[in-house]
């Protein structure tokens, strides 16, 4: 029984970060029916990808970032590979620069997300426009970006709670 509990704990430890990203992607695809919201809904999944890359890269690797992006492409019916590329590159650069953000006060993490999240959305706007050979509406992207930055603390809190639920010391 104890061994089973330990196994469940380990499975949770290994899969929870990825599952949180998938969960947020699915939530983002639900029909919310809020007036004028559909065209500016924030891409929530970008937040945990940023959070794991900066604060717990040992629990969420580059391959997981790639597959999260691919899943988002499939779910949002976007040209395959766009979000996979953006999530992978975002993860790589954040992983390289994490020493400037991790362990610092919360506002540094938030500012970092505002910067990297905006760059990621701009890259997506560019790639989607390139793929459709036509510039798509930019105002919606900007509003979506603002929404995403505003909800960052909530999702970051969720990620933090998940780390506290299964501390890595248990598996060292």
């Amino acid at each position, binding site marked *: 029984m104890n061994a089973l509990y330990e196994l469940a704990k380990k499975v949770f430890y290994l899969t929870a970060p990825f599952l949180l990203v998938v969960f947020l992607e699915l939530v983002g695809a639900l*029909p919310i*029916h809020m*007036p*004028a919201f559909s065209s500016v809904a924030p891409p929530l999944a970008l937040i945990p990808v940023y959070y794991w890359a900066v604060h717990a890269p040992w629990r969420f690797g580059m391959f997981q970032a790639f597959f999260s992006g691919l899943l988002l492409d499939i779910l949002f*019916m976007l*040209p395959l590979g766009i979000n996979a590329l953006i999530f*992978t590159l975002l993860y790589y650069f954040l992983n390289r620069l994490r020493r400037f953000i991790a362990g610092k006060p919360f506002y540094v993490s938030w500012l970092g997300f505002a910067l990297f999240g905006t760059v990621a959305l701009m890259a997506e706007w560019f790639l989607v426009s390139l793929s459709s050979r036509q510039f798509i509406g930019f105002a*919606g992207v900007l509003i979506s970006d603002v929404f995403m930055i505003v909800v960052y603390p909530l999702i970051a809190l969720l990620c933090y709670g998940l780390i506290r639920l299964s501390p890595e010391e248990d598996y060292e």
Partner: protein
Amino acid sequence: MQQANRVKSHLYHVKSFLQRFALILLVILAFGLMLLGKADNVIVSVGQKVLTVVMVPVLEVLSVPVNAVKSYAGDVQELAALKEYNQKLIAQNQEMLEYKKQAKLLKSENEKLAKLLNYKKPPKAKSVSARVVADPGGAFAQSILVLAGREDGVSKGDVVMAKDGLAGRIAYAGEKASQVLLISDVNSRIPVFIEPHGYRAVLIGDNTPKPQITALPEKAEVAVGDKVVTSGDAGVFPAEIEIGVIESKKDGIIKVKPLVNRDRLDIVNIIDFGLKGILENIKCE
């Protein structure tokens, strides 16, 4: 023991190789998907199959609480406006009875004239109603997922209508669910008429809630409030389906306000008018 160590060593080498070249590998893979996805329908249809087979059941479960909240909110609103609704319905009923009389007369007249001209009627449209199970919001996605598929007679190219007008068309029909390309999607191109003058033009999506009018004749003069309907050209949509009205004309950009409100898309009607147009030769998975 030695063999086990050898396997472990191999695994370690594979892991370190993957870690070292992960970025290059994944970037190449992503670009490969983007390029192949453009050219190869097989890769795209695998993605669409994953979406309709694996994700739809999960989305159905997740949408239960959302629908419950929406339903309660709707009930409360309806209760508050019950008396007003009732009066409106009585007035509408009177009006409808008048229309019914006129319609009966016109129908019999129409039948007589059709007989005189030996007119061949177009095939009867088949329709299916379906619930919207996913509406991936955001600035980049303008498509929805509905709970009706090939099992229900839905096929690629079918017209998707909401109660107010044209919503889009079926881009992919899975077994139990289908993907709808909305008229606001950047890949949507619809031949239209602008009434009352009947100018031909093309309505193109730009991923904003308000698509644009292009390919309008040079001397055409359109005004805010003009009605936009399908022209039936290219044989994908039948003629005279209402789309929206011209909302603004600014710097040569003509924006159309669709009659269908995407935020209220809940149940849609999928109609097979027997027109497949240029899509006829494209193999449907």
